[in-house]
């Protein structure tokens, strides 16, 4: 490396951050500033508010002067902190992926946040993040940072290179049909209400004209219809919010493969780019929440070392047509059978266990109701609710029993389970670094076991639930030759 970035000099972030830092600082210190304004108006001295604002802005500007980074031959360092100085060092050969992220303000100024992630889970204040550098510098920095772990020949340092490689998937408006069925909209409403009440605006709202007219309407039309209207409004709002969020977050999503690197770009307002190292791919997970599954959709997560298993970090495709997700995964792991091939069911014992578990709650409720008929009269609606509950439980049990299955060969372990969230985990057997066969008391009696494959990737443990006990070690031995070759392996007497 002869680029200036590898010299032992400390670099500053982009000077444009002198504009961004104060704004972010003000946004972050809003409670303090509100307090200062209140204090100012209470004492009749507006200087309080001005002073607080000035200090906050000054603090933001100081942040730029106190933040610097350098890239050395074997590690990268970041110095931050105005009052508390902090140095974060990351060995370069530990860098697993580089992600970029640009909020609206960053985008307007042509800036990008660059995040370096290693295998370890970094806590909030130990994340190595360059906030922010000029967008044009990103390809150069990325290739320098990843030079040790990725041998890439492009990106020599001028302007951003034209995206190359094969496009695996591209967002289309039809994907929006899966988003109304998620709970993100509802979660956003709840979060917004929480913020409103936390800010002490709840009392203000209670006496506002809106609340008054609401109360009047409730008195006029009766409780039931008002509640129905309120529920309808919340549902409609949550659907709209879910669709909007999905559009803003995933609209323009492109998944691109460039030799050994997988690029995922998405976000309309907040642009994000994830770069995955394909050599660390250990499989993938297809997830189908019940409502998404009913519409024939699925989401795809990568199982990778150095990338957290759940949530945003591992997401490759948001809910999209199941065919698309399956094709992409089959292309990535180069084995269509592991993705779409039939799975082997787990037999009658496992099915029985699904039924007993699902029907336990309705059964106990029924017994309680029958017993209490001797002392009190049970209203009719209680029995109707019980019947509906029992029916739902039965459907759940049937679906879960049907979903349960596995598939194993020398290269891939596939485990399928679940109903409310059906998931199909495809795990590379080469990445499995330990097997556990776990049996609870009831599993021993039923002659089944849960097989857990430990890996360094994704959520770290992948379970094959309730396989017949005599099959558990056979699966492990098929997947990992070192189990079959171990001194403990014996051909079992029972026929499998």
């Amino acid at each position: 490396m002869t680029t200036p970035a590898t010299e032992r000099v400390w670099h500053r972030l982009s000077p444009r951050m002198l504009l961004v830092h104060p704004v972010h600082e003000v946004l972050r210190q809003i409670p303090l500033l509100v307090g200062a304004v209140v204090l100012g108006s209470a004492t009749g001295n507006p200087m309080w508010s001005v002073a607080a604002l000035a200090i906050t802005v000054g603090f933001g500007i100081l942040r730029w002067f106190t933040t610097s980074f350098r890239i050395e031959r074997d590690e990268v360092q970041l110095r931050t902190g105005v009052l508390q100085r902090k140095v974060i060092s990351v060995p370069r050969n530990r860098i697993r992926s580089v992600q970029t992220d640009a909020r609206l303000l960053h985008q307007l100024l042509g800036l990008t946040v660059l995040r370096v992630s290693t295998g370890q889970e970094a806590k909030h204040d130990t994340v190595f993040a360059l906030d922010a550098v000029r967008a044009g510098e990103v390809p150069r920095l990325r290739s320098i940072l990843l030079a040790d772990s990725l041998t890439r020949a492009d990106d020599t340092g001028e302007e951003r290179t034209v995206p190359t490689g094969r496009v695996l998937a591209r967002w289309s408006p039809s994907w929006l049909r899966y988003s109304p069925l998620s709970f993100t909209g509802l979660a956003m409403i709840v979060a917004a209400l929480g913020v409103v009440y936390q800010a002490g605006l709840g009392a203000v709202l209670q006496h506002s004209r809106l609340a008054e007219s609401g109360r009047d309407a409730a008195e006029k039309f009766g409780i039931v219809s008002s509640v129905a209207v309120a529920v309808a409004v919340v549902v409609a709002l949550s659907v709209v919010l879910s669709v909007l969020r999905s559009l803003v977050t995933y609209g323009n999503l492109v998944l691109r493969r460039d030799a050994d690197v997988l690029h995922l770009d998405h976000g309309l307002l907040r642009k994000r780019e994830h770069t995955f190292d394909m050599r660390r791919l250990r499989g993938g997970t297809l997830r189908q929440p019940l409502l998404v599954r009913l519409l024939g959709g699925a989401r795809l997560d990568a199982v990778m070392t150095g990338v957290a298993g759940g949530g945003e970090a591992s997401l490759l495709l948001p809910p999209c047509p199941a065919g698309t997700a399956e094709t992409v995964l089959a292309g990535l792991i180069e084995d269509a059978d592991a993705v779409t091939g039939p799975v082997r069911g787990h037999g009658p014992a496992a099915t029985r266990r699904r039924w007993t578990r699902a029907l336990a709650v309705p059964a106990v409720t029924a017994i309680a109701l029958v017993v209490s008929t001797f002392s009190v009269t049970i209203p009719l609606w209680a029995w109707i609710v019980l019947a509906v509950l029992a029916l739902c439980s039965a459907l759940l049990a049937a679906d879960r029993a049907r979903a349960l299955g596995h598939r194993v060969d020398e290269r891939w372990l596939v485990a399928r389970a679940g109903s409310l969230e059906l998931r199909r985990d495809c795990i590379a057997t080469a990445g499995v670094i330990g097997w556990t066969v776990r049996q609870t008391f009831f599993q021993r009696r039923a002659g089944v076991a849960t097989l857990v494959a430990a890996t360094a990737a994704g959520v770290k443990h992948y379970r094959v639930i309730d396989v017949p006990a005599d099959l558990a070690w056979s699966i492990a031995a098929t997947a990992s030759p070192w189990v079959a070759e171990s001194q403990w392996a014996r051909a079992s007497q029972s026929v499998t």
Partner: protein
Amino acid sequence: MDLVDPANRPSRKAPLVWAIGAAIPWLILAAVQLVWFVIDRRLTSLHIAAAAATAVGIVVFVVVVPLWRYRVHRWEIGPKAVYTRSGWLIQERRIAPISRVQTVDTYRGPVDRLFGLANVTVTTASSAGAVRIVALDSDVADRVVARLTDIAAIGAEDAT
């Protein structure tokens, strides 16, 4: 295909050590109940119920569980893999290849030290794959650690 159980049991002192470890919190609870009884003698039935619950807890966790665990626990180190069996109500058999071992730790708690026992934890790159060999005699534990670090050649590769 099946795997036969690993050959070695934990130390003979293991049930005793487990019993002592379990007895400490239960005896504290019993002492608290005694103090409560001395201070407040009303509600006799409640006192009897609490005492009975404590007695059952002591019998189960101080007598039954340690013996049960001793019957279940096994470990063995082969040329290529570590294999253990553990648990009581929920039983686990776990195998991990030694080539993927990252660290080998020993842990001695206060009670363990009193009786000369040690626990060995073999970690791999997966947080779900750590193999624990508990309640070994100290000299056995030392030999286990020496043997494992010998075979593993720790640090030679990434082990993920």
